[in-house]
């Protein structure tokens, strides 16, 4: 698996888009820090960007990489390699290279700014951890979609729909449900609703840590009331881990049954 990981990783590192992605985060970090001067505000703005962008890029790169490396995969399948290690290797190659772009792209400007002396270091680390989780989750989801769809365009379409649904539409439905049923106790519903969407979960997680009640909204407030800050943090990280493991397991399972 490590050999495949290495090849996939370096294959992606040679691609122009990895650098564009890295450069984007790098510029974003610099602009936010040196034009804004307020570290905690910069972290919040970054959160809003990462929470939408990391899933989007993870989805696009995941689907594109899978379809573009079909030939490579077929070549590997005839070699004495386990199917699970072929697909896990490719998946980790994509997810790790994207996460590296994120961490390096944001980490370097923040280090330059003097993050290590600042109190925001934990908030910032949590931001990078959630971003990495989101990258892993959405790359795994997109690999799942690509594995289940032979047709490139259809697979790409489904992957984009999934992103659109979880990043935008889900919140709309969620809010509508909360307004429609406002006469009923909605604590449980909103807790479950948050946990079923990794993007909402990440947002709640970061806001819990930042402890900004004004931005937390209804679900965040309930989360805090229900679990308290520490327990809430642990629970949401646990949920993110679950969100990563389940799609990866399905991916391996699906890959074992597929014909090439």
């Amino acid at each position, binding site marked *: 698996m490590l*050999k*495949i990981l290495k*090849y996939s990783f370096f*294959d992606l590192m*040679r691609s122009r888009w990895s650098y564009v992605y890295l450069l984007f985060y790098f510029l974003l970090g610099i602009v936010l820090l040196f034009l804004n001067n307020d570290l905690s505000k910069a972290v919040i703005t970054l959160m809003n960007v990462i929470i939408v962008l990391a899933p989007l890029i993870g989805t696009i790169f995941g689907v594109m990489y899978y379809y573009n*490396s*079909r*030939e*490579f995969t*077929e*070549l*590997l*399948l*005839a*070699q*004495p*390699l*386990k*199917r699970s290690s072929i697909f896990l290797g490719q998946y980790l190659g994509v997810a790790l290279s994207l996460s590296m772009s994120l961490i390096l792209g944001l980490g370097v400007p923040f280090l330059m700014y003097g993050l290590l002396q600042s109190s925001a270091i934990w908030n910032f680390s949590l931001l990078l951890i959630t971003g990495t989780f989101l990258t892993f989750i959405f790359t795994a989801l997109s690999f799942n979609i690509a594995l289940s769809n032979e047709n490139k365009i259809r697979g790409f379409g489904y992957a984009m729909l999934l992103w659109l649904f979880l990043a935008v539409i889900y919140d709309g439905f969620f809010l509508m449900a909360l307004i429609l049923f406002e006469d009923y106790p909605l604590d449980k519903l909103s807790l479950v609703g948050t946990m079923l969407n990794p993007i909402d979960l990440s947002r709640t997680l970061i806001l819990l840590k930042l402890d900004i009640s004004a931005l937390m909204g209804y679900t965040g407030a309930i989360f805090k009331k229900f679990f308290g800050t520490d327990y809430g943090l642990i629970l949401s990280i646990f949920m993110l881990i679950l969100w990563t493991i389940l799609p990866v397991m399905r991916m391996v399972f699906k890959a*074992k*049954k*597929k*014909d*090439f």
Partner: protein
Amino acid sequence: MVSITNLYKRFNKNTVLSGVNLEIHQGGIFTILGPNGSGKTTLIKSILGMVIPDKGTLMVFGKNIKSNSSYRHQINYLPQIANFPSNLKVKELIKMIKNLRGDPGTDLELMERFELAPFLDKKLGTLSGGTKQKVNIVLTFMFDSPLIILDEPTTGLDPISLLFLKERIQIEKAKGKTLLITSHIMSFVEEVSDEIVFLLEGNIYFKGSVSALKAKTQEQDFEHAIASILSNNHA
């Protein structure tokens, strides 16, 4: 060496293999023939574990290949269409496959014979079909394995390379290896094969030597013998 019992495979509604039984012994050249869509490639890919059969057992080197991958150390496979990652260079690809198999291989002689040296630093996406097929053949023959599977090996080759390929096939045969070949070039099949397996609509219609096939169809010419099977069946 390879033993297939009662193999079934369908893709959606399309039944490709329906109860294939085949025994391939060690040593010699076996060719799998059949019209387009008769399941030749599916059969080969099942042996390689790339296609997962719906029913039936596949034993390679005496072991069931289900959820097993290490037996592929002993197989060299030449895929039908040389689909390589287009952004890799020829020499990177060769290095990668060696690395993945954990085997240094012997590619130098092959490269020389195919005159591939000027292409080593070129990306695979820029190569012509014939050159890709040469790279494909180098990748297949550079390892020393007892079972060699060639899916349409002659595609796109120029006469000199074809001659070399035939020569190489005979060398491998002389070493006591087993070769499993599919081809549509009848003269090639007649020349190289020791035994023919004729697939028709997902079943083995005929298995035996070229002369046995001629006797069965009462034709003098091999090409006509094959044609008579096909036309009799479709009539």
